[in-house]
């Protein structure tokens, strides 16, 4: 009996290969890692960003999603497109608006301001879409922290994460430290800096003066 079943199994599977691709399950990310160049590219961009290679990160994303500036662009890999947008937005923020992208000016201080505003608006849009990822919240706070009018909101967002003990990265602690410093709460700033240094002992950006 079992023999018949074993013999039939590969046939059934072959039939499945012919079926059109449908939404992947959790494990499929591993399967795709090998064959899916979009996944690979976005992961690469993420790594470049983590190593502070802002230009490199933006370049890889633009190579994959040339329409990264179009807020509601629809693609087959929507989630990865959004991820790419977030990477480019962070690259702008961390480089002080210095990344040149066709469609965004980038020569004068005013141009940089436009790029930073785009980055903050983009992250805000993702948060408004209902993406509840804590990492996104911290990224949005990082963008808002650069904009004096919105620092208050940045502080509130990060404070909530810190109080719930769900601060996702050392960088988020360093942004909070800088915000506390600006508000004049040196104790809170020192605590945030200490946590940043605990998480990333070698990272100079934990020093609140390192963040503007």
């Amino acid at each position: 009996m079992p023999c018949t079943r074993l013999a039939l199994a590969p046939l059934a599977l072959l039939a499945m290969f012919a079926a059109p691709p449908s939404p992947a399950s959790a494990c499929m990310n591993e399967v795709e890692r090998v064959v899916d160049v979009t996944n690979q590219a976005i992961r690469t961009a993420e790594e470049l960003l983590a190593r502070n290679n802002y230009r490199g990160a933006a370049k890889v994303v633009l190579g994959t999603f040339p329409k990264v500036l179009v807020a509601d662009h629809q693609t087959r890999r929507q989630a990865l497109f959004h991820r790419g947008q977030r990477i480019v937005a962070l690259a702008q923020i961390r480089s002080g608006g210095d990344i040149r992208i066709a469609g965004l000016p980038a020569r004068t201080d005013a141009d940089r301001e436009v790029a930073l505003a785009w980055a903050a608006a983009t992250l805000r849009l993702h948060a408004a879409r209902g993406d509840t990822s804590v990492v996104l919240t911290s990224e949005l706070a990082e963008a808002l922290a650069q904009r004096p009018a919105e620092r208050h909101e940045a502080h509130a967002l990060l404070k909530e994460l810190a109080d719930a003990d769900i601060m996702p990265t050392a960088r988020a602690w360093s942004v909070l430290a800088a915000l506390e410093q600006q508000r004049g709460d040196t104790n809170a700033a020192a605590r945030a800096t200490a946590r940043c240094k605990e998480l990333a002992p070698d990272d100079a950006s934990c020093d609140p003066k390192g963040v503007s």
Partner: protein
Amino acid sequence: MPRLAALALAFLSCGTGPNPPVPLDRPLEPAADPAQIARGQALLAELQCARCHDGDALTPPPRERHCVHCHQSILAGVAAVGGDFAAPPAELARWQRDITHLRELPELRGLGRLRRSFVAAFLLSPHDLRPGLNTSMPRLHLDEPSAQALAAALVPDAEPAPHEPAGDPTRGRDLLGEHGCTNCHAFTGVATITARPLAHPPDPATMLRASQQAPDLRFTRDRLRPAALHTWLADPAALKPGTLMPDPDLRQDEIRDLATYLLTTPLEPLPPPVPPVMLPLLDREVGFAEVDAAIFHKTCWHCHSDPSYASGDGGPGNTGGLGFTGASLDLSSHAAISSGSRGPDGKRRSVLAPLPDGTPRIVAHLLARHAELTGATPELRGMPLGLTPVPLADIQLLATWIAQGRKP
């Protein structure tokens, strides 16, 4: 003429008249309520039982979503032929080495042999039925009425009255050894039975699968309807087509003796559940990479993944599935793990922070899985859900990493 001969034989072999059947200490189960059956059928789809089980009442999802079909096809090497799942041989070989769970599962066929009350209780509080299988039925998000409804859908028919006379349990015990039953079956709670080699053993691969699928016979009296037990021993495939239990080729009197032993022999009680004991924290520095390789990426990440990289599906433990709405817990990176989960109040909370007793929440879930396998039903659901517990030495790594400040 043959009928007369049979009658004569029956009279000859039972001089004092046939024994009554083994008495039931409960009423027979009536047919299930049609409304409950309908609700149960809807739940079978809602709770995605078909992502793990094949079965008569189940429509399998595409392989990309089927935990067992996908693993089996990768193990069979079919993925190498191309299509969406093409992988270089080295990668495929690594997958084949890594996939140890959800390769082999009981099919939900011929379930009319089971007691409906057993199915309902088992779904609510699953325990390990098959010692050879490293995966258990997961504790799903179910309340009592839903479990009853599922049981009604899986076992809709009334229970037939047992009519086979009781046999000789002592002889039944000997037959378990003589027929080699315990080559495949564990029988905890009775004195060890030494099995004779099987007269016609299946090929080694089938034998391995059969010994993984063979239930511990301790539970049979709770699981099977007694009338079905007789049919099963006479011809297992008649009740469950495709079953891995070979036809045992038994005489009627042997079946009675075996069934009587299985239903009536006194059982040693199971040892009481033991709370797992944590190993002390390590003295050395433990980095995230080590914990990630030993726990998160090895096991957890397959159900708690980053949805951006998996076409929106972050797995049952993150974006939901298998009837869970998902705890919004992504265990695929340091930043994600630090981001915590969504609690029942809808607010995010840390999984690394301690519970009131001082144990970090995530560690408590890992210990709960150890407790589940000793028969307990801890309040926190054991993780990894339904799979082999994380070894205590790896939990020690995780706890040490958390205590040392959970650095990236």
